[in-house]
């Protein structure tokens, strides 16, 4: 997009700005669309689970206009700031949470090449920014001037900060398999049939997914881990004093973060934008067949990704309406006594698995050391479109490196 703007002769600061603006607006559309749909799904699924129908009338059938109607209702509500609250921080807190949830989407690729920012370190950015959401909640709890809010915020801080540890360990396991922190690279690795998805790669990745799912739910403080807003104990936790638009912003942030985490799970474990069956490549919808085919293929990939993300959201909703809430000590104990050790075990296991299945230095790199091939295409994380060649290239590089080291050691012995 940058080069597209540049070809009209814009100065490059304007081109960067325009490209950034377009991308930001696209991300904003996604971030606003996702909570609407997720909220409607939550109502319908909760209704079915409780043997009700959920909303039926709004918008004619299925209550499909329920979320916009809710939004309008919340906008019309009176803007209440409690007398004991800190007005500045009280106003600021929801927007901080929403900013964090929004920024996470910046690195989330919805299709091959369709990420606002494709970084080498996209996954790390995701973790770093997703951790900032808690700050808004803490500020909200503190600034509300209410003991319920303060208790909720303290629980949130303890719970979310704790669960960042096992989540970080969980996402490392697919990274060890792929050898890249670039989410697009991780997605490209899983092209083809669903058997190529990372969750079917080895038993450790399969097991770590379940830990990831539980920890993501806890990190999002969704039920059964929704202690920060436990309505049977804390009225509504950190959101007790919030109403109207600010409350809506908090919950948009929550639903957007739900989608972001399940989308991350889809990329890390379930092939990202690659469907279970390689329909796009059968139809020739790959970027090698021209830009239109590539665009259509990416569109298909985006549909795939959205379906997977919303499937994850559905599972979270399902868990919320079927499982009873845990106690706070149980939640923390689950994190530190079970999830962290298990995730560490899986991490060690997958490292051993990778080390056993791929030969480190045993491959004879004599010919590889001499070929004057250009490394940019073989550099891990930089092999665009080469798909599964990346880790092989990495290990070849490592093998060449080992041979190189041996050569140098021999030279050291000879030269003096």
């Amino acid at each position, binding site marked *: 997009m*940058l080069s597209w703007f540049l070809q009209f002769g814009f100065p490059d600061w304007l081109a960067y700005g325009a490209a950034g603006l377009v991308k930001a607006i696209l991300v904003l559309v996604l971030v606003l669309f996702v909570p609407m749909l997720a909220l409607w799904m939550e109502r319908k699924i909760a209704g079915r689970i409780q043997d009700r129908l959920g909303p039926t009338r709004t918008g004619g059938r299925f209550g499909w206009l329920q979320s916009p109607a809710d939004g309008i209702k919340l906008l019309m509500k009176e803007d209440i700031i409690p007398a004991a609250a800190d007005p500045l921080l009280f106003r600021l807190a929801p927007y901080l949470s929403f900013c964090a949830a929004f920024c996470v989407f910046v690195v989330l690729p919805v299709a091959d090449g369709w990420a606002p920012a494709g*970084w080498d370190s996209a996954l790390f950015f995701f973790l770093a920014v997703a951790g900032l959401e808690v700050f808004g909640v803490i500020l909200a709890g503190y600034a509300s*001037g209410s003991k319920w809010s303060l208790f909720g915020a*303290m629980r949130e*801080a303890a719970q979310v900060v704790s669960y960042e540890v096992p989540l970080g360990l969980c996402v490392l396991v697919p990274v060890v398999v792929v050898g890249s922190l670039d989410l697009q690279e991780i997605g490209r690795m899983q092209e083809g049939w669903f058997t190529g998805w990372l969750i079917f790669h080895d038993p450790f990745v399969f097991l770590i997914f379940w830990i990831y799912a539980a920890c993501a739910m806890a990190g999002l403080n969704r039920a059964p881990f929704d202690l920060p807003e436990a309505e049977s104990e804390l009225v509504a936790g950190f959101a007790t004093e919030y109403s109207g638009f600010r409350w809506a912003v908090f919950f948009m942030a929550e639903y957007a973060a739900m989608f972001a985490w399940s989308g991350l799970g889809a990329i890390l474990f379930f092939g990202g934008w690659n469907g279970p069956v390689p329909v796009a490549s059968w139809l020739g919808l790959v970027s090698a067949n021209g830009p239109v085919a590539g665009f259509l293929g990416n569109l298909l990939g985006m549909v795939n990704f959205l379906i997977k993300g919303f499937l994850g959201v559905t599972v979270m909703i399902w868990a919320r309406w079927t499982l009873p809430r845990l106690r706070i000590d149980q939640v923390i104990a689950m994190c530190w006594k079970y999830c962290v050790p298990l995730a560490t075990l899986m991490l060690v296991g997958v490292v051993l698995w990778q080390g056993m299945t791929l030969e480190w230095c045993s491959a004879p790199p004599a010919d590889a050391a001499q070929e004057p091939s250009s490394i940019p295409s073989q550099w891990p994380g930089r092999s665009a479109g080469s798909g599964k060649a990346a880790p092989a290239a990495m290990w070849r590089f490592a093998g060449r490196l080992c041979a190189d080291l041996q050569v*140098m050691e021999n030279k050291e012995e000879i030269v003096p």
Partner: protein
Amino acid sequence: MSGSILPTILFFLFASLACAGAVGVLLLQRIVYMAGALLVSLAGVAGLFFIAGADFVGLVQLMVYVGGTVVLLAFGVMLTARRSQPGWQVPAGQWAAGLAVGAVLLAVLLWSVLAVPPWRSVWPTVSAEGAPSGGVATVTTGSAYQQEAQPGTIGPLGWALLGVRTDRAIQQDSSQAPLDSSQAQANFSQAPPNRFQARPDSAQTVLDPSQEDARQTGRSGYLLPFEIISVHLVLVLIGAAFLARARIPFPSSPLPAVGEAGLTNGQAG
């Protein structure tokens, strides 16, 4: 940075954010506001890192300082601060001492910053014809995503941890003839932004003794220091948890007072 004013604009934006946050930490009266100002300041510094092309350092800044330290700080404030607490009155003597320490630190920082050779821009310099200047290969080749990708640092950092210094490799690759050190330095400072895309090339460089030295020092790697620091941090964490643990009496002892019945080790530690 040929021709583009965007990095300059962004630099001044983030630098003013960082400075404003720092001044806010000094001047604000409420401790929670100070935490918020600290958040702004640290996030501004992270933005500066991103502009300088040190994306990994910027992310660590976000992860550790903005996401970790400030959250813990706010958590601590929440537990301790009282709403009725009056604003802090800082005595003039403390102001003077603080200003003196700050001036010394500023002098040290200025001295070390000015000692650094001129910064290399990592922004892809794209011209209107799409022709890359300065050897930015990825700007014109590759998929649409790669056209706008900034050179990442996380891969080269990982290799450097294992002792492969890709930046030194390109330094040697770009100098076909034997160079003296000043010439090599000049060459290094003119290295293209995507200098990480080269690799240590054995056939070309082992013949030259000075380059051999550079390769040798690069090979040592940072894995051992990294591991030592990690173990150190784990020790600190365990120690802190040991000191801060709740001193719950053992079930076997009949309701002892805190600190008795074999629990004195908690206080001795």
